[in-house]
Each structure stands twice: as C-alpha cells, then as structure tokens.
C-alpha cells in the first residue's frame, strides 16, 4: 500500500469510533443516528479513495497482499452493517461492524507492508479482480452474520423473540454471502483452468474454501428446509466463519496447507 495509508486509517478509525459512540447513546434521536450512519459511510468512501490511489500508484489492483485484502474487508463490512441497519434498525449491528473494521485497519497499521508494484504473471488475468473482490465482499457479509450470531448466542434466550428476529437477519446475510461466495469460487475454477490447466487442484486454499461452502450450505438447509430454530444453527454459523478465517489468512497454521499456490506475499 502507499505511504498515505496511516493518514487515511487514522481518519477512518476516528469516524468509526465517533459513529460507534453516537449509535451507543442514540435511542430515538434520528439526527444522532443519521450522523452516525453518515460517518460510517464516509469511512468506507475514504478507504475506497485510498484503494483508488493505491491502484494508481502500484499500477496493479491492490488485491495481492494480505494487508490489501484486509483493506477491502474494512470497506465492505461497515457497508454490510449499514444495509442491515436500514432493514432491521438495530444499532448494535453498526457498532459491531465498525468495531471489526477498526480491528482490521489497526492490524494493517501494526503490520505495514512494502510498496510493491510487482504482480506475478499468473495474477495478470481479467478474473483476478472479480474473483478476489467477490470473495472479500462475501467474507464481509458472512462476517456480519457471524457477529449477529455471536451476539445472539451469548445474550439471547432460546425461544425469545430477539433470537427469532436475529436468525432472520443471519438467514438474509448468509443468503447474500453464500451466493457471492459461490460465484467467487466458480470464477476461481474457471480462472484456474486457464492459468493452471485444471479447474480444481485441491490446493489448500481451494480445500478450505470448499469446507466453508459446505458449512454454509448445511446452515441453509438446516434453516430453510429442515426449519430448525434455536441456537444450534447460529453455533454452526460461528464454526463456518472460523473456516473462512483459516481459508483467508490462517492457512499457515494448518500442516496440510504448505505449498499452497495461493500465497500472500
């Protein structure tokens, strides 16, 4: 990323923190909540500007390194919070999404990356941007679902109205996240055929992506077709999100994942 990242990051963190404080104290004051929402939206716009600036400076899409993908995640996650708030009007959703976005930006501040314009030949493909951007968007949406699930599992009682309502939220978020995750995975298969000669090579990244996909598919069937309620599907969501985190940046922890072609550098 560029030298300007710390400046952008600090302003974005300030906006998220301010939005979080306002959302925490607002009960029915529409002006306060609108101000908070504008601040959250502005932080995403600010980071989009940083992405555009980085793209121009690096002369390649800023999607190659782990820090760059964390940046995209920090753009999408607060927007997921805003969209969810728009439909269900729960301020805690915006607060949780802001908090997670702050965490990812702070991680980038503590682990600054070198300015690197290189893009290996295998990544120079029209599939690169849609494949990775769709994945980051789906991670953000499924991350939002995990935050709702976590809050519900900890705070709500089985059979309560809040649990039922929050499960409706997770159903919608999983529907969006699963669909985009699926499309991103298929784009990867089509790209792999052009780049590596086979659409699926059981590369560790692909294996863990499939594991995540299977987990969310089971959640959808469990909720949609079997119509199970309660905390069990939400716990399944949390486990599924762990597999996404391993797939995204935890592969180095898994012994079977050495030699993956999907290496962040």
């Amino acid at each position, binding site marked *: 990323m560029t*030298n300007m990242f710390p400046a952008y990051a600090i302003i974005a963190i300030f906006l998220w923190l301010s939005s979080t404080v306002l959302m925490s104290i607002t009960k029915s004051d529409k002006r306060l909540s609108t101000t908070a929402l504008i601040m959250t939206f502005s932080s995403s716009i600010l980071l989009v500007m940083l992405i555009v600036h980085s793209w121009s400076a690096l002369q390649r899409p800023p999607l190659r390194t782990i820090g760059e993908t964390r940046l995209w995640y920090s753009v999408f996650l607060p927007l997921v919070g805003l969209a969810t708030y728009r439909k269900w009007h729960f301020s805690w959703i915006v607060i949780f999404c802001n908090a997670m976005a702050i965490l990812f930006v702070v991680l980038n501040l503590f682990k600054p990356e*070198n*300015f690197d*314009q*290189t*893009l*290996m*030949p*295998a990544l*120079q*493909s029209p599939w690169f941007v849609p494949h990775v951007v769709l994945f980051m968007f789906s991670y953000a949406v499924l991350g939002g679902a995990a935050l709702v699930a976590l809050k519900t599992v900890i705070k709500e009682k089985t059979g309560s109205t809040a649990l039922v309502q929050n499960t*409706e939220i997770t*159903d*919608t978020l999983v*529907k*969006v996240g*699963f*669909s*985009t995750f*699926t*499309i991103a995975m*298929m784009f990867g*298969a*089509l790209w792999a*055929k*052009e*780049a*590596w*000669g*086979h*659409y*699926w090579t*059981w590369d*560790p990244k692909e*294996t*863990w992506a*499939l*594991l995540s996909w*299977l*987990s969310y*598919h*089971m959640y*959808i*069937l*469990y909720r*949609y*077709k*079997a*119509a*199970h309620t309660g905390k069990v599907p939400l716990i399944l969501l949390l486990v599924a999100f762990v597999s996404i985190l391993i797939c995204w940046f935890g592969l180095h922890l*898994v*012994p*079977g*994942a*050495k030699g993956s072609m999907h290496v962040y550098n």
Partner: protein
Amino acid sequence: MTKLSALLKTLTAFTLTLFAGYILERYGPPLPLQAFQWPVNIIILSLFTCTVVGLQSIKPVSAWLSSSSTLISALAMMTIEVMVLGIFPQTHLQDVLRPSLWGFHSVLSSWPWFISQVLLLLVLGSHISKQIVRKDFTSLGVLQLGAWIVLIGAQLGYVDMERCWVRVAEGNRADIAFDSGGKAIDLGFSISLQDFIMEEYAPKIFTVIPQPEGQSPKKIESQRACHRGLTESLGEYEIAVEKYLPYALRGHNDFFPSDTGLTVHAAFVTAKKEGKLYSGWLSSGINQMKPHGLFLEDSVALFMDRPKPKSYSSTIVVKDSISLDDTLSVRVNKPMKVKGWKIYQRGFDKSRGRWSRICVLELVRDPWLPFVYSGIFMIIAGALLFLFSDNRKENQ
C-alpha cells in the same frame, strides 16, 4: 419423530458408514481408481442417474433419501473428508497407491472418500429429482443440480484427463511428452521452440545488517523498484541510485550497457551515513554470475534483489505430418489449443532467467470438461437466482 432426532439418527448411520470405510481402507484392497476409465465411467454415470431417478418410484426410500436431514448428513460426511484433506498433508494421487494406513494422507484415493461421494451423489440426486418431479425447482435446486453435475463429472472424468509436460530448447523439436509417472505420450504433432521472451520488473535494493550471534541478519528492502534518481533511507544509510542499467555486462570494475550476452540488472549507487560516502555498483546476478554488492562499514552490505518476472511467453511452431503448421504464442493465462490438447506455458530455465533458451509446456486433454463446465455455469446461475430469491419462498 422430531426433525432433530431424525437428523441425529441419519447422521449416526452415515458416520458409522464412513467409519466402515476407514476400516476398509485399513484392512481392505486399494480403491481401483483406474477401473473407472472410459467407457466404464460413462456407463456408471448412466446407471447411477437411472438409479437416482428410479428410486423416486419407491416411496419410503425416496422420502428418506430426498429429505433435508439426509442431505445435511451426507454433506456432513463430505465435510469431514474435506476437513481431513485440509488438515493432513496429502501425497499425490499417482505417487503411491497406499501411502497411509487410514487414508488420511491420500484422501482422494481412499475408501472413506469414495463412500462419502457415493452417499452425497445419491442423496443430492434424489433431492433434486424430487424437486423436478414435483415441479418445485427452487433457485437452490438449480445450484445443487450444478453441484451434482460438477461432482460426478469431475470425479468420473478425472481418470480420462491426460496431463503431460514437454521441455523444448530453442531450435529443437519435441513430439513426445511425459506424464507425471514418466510415461511417454505421443502427441501426434511436434512442437519447436522459436523464441522464449521474458519481461522483468526492475529489482529492489536491500541492505543486510548483521545481528548479534544466534540471530539471522536483518534485511531492509527499498520501498520502490530500482530506477535512476531513486533515493531512500535503508537503515542508517541514505541510498541514492545514480545510474541504472536494465541490460548490463560486467567490465573490469564497472558495468556497461549491452544488447547481447547474458546481461543483468546493474545500478551505480551511493550510500551516505554521518558525512561518510560510499559508492559502487550493484547487480542482480544470474546463476552464471554472482550478484555484485557494496560493502559498507560494520559488515553492513547493500545488494540488489533478483528481478521478478513480469510476463513470459514461448513462440512455438506446431506441425504434424498432414496439414498442421502453425506458429503460436503461449503465455501464462493464455493457453493455446492444438488437436484437442490445450498447451500451457508452465516454466523456463530459472538459472538463466530472461535468457532462458528452454521452455516447459504443459499439455492437457480433458474430454469431460464440457460436462463439468455446464455444471459450473449452472452453479453460477443458481447462486444468482438464490441471491435475488424471496427467503419465504425458498423456505417452503
């Protein structure tokens, strides 16, 4: 029976079946993967599809097979196997037939995997058939049908897929390729390498600072690639690049630009620290020539990194004894098709870098690809439909 107890019963039954697969893997014969070659695989596909559709007429069986509890259980079995695949290092399918006792290190050629796949295809197929028969095909059903096609096509078609490699030197010709087992494959046409071209990114400069005993030296890399006029702080030194030659040969004490020969990247740099000035040449080197560095005080040294490839391609001529005579440019992400084979640019002589006179090409022939692709596009269509679907309608 409540839905949850039905799910638990099916999960238990499937887990026991999977466990039986592990016992079979440990004490039984190896899975006869090669038996699934054409035409056996197409016969299996036809029979399996007929079985799945035919089972719809046996009410109790079809009701159980097409229930969501059974499908969740079947997905859970596949999830267990994929988790084993993701956690344990795997040996290549063709390396050893039985490399691990319980199949943990060779999941894809193990009995538990085979059992989990058969279960899933049977159950998923029944689930989809029920939707089609009832004319109640949801968007998730489209996605699942695509997944069924991909799963069965990829696995039955795997043994029919041919992958081989050919290594060609400039001016030479090859008409035999070799697969990963070393078996020679007659391509039916010859490949000659006319030219191998590689573009490189300008390399970066880095400083190496020795650390106390027992610790690895510290490496500080420049932020930007080497170019004339670059100035940066690396450690305690202010570095400036006064000259940069992307194609240079080594002279007596310096480097000079050249159009011919095994040229390297070279730069004349200065390094300043507390009023002291050091200057000298750096070069990236290639295997035939060591990189050239600049040694500063306190054993600190300045070097130039190896340049990274930006793009590379092979211009090849393909000919056969009849009418084929084409000149093609094969590059990464842009394979070329010749007589049913797809040719991929895979490698080159790394010791010579951009001066490689050898290219490594991979050739792939996959007759099941159109079938699998139809499944992939159906999955994408199903996902898009699901994305815009009504939650309530999907819940029915």
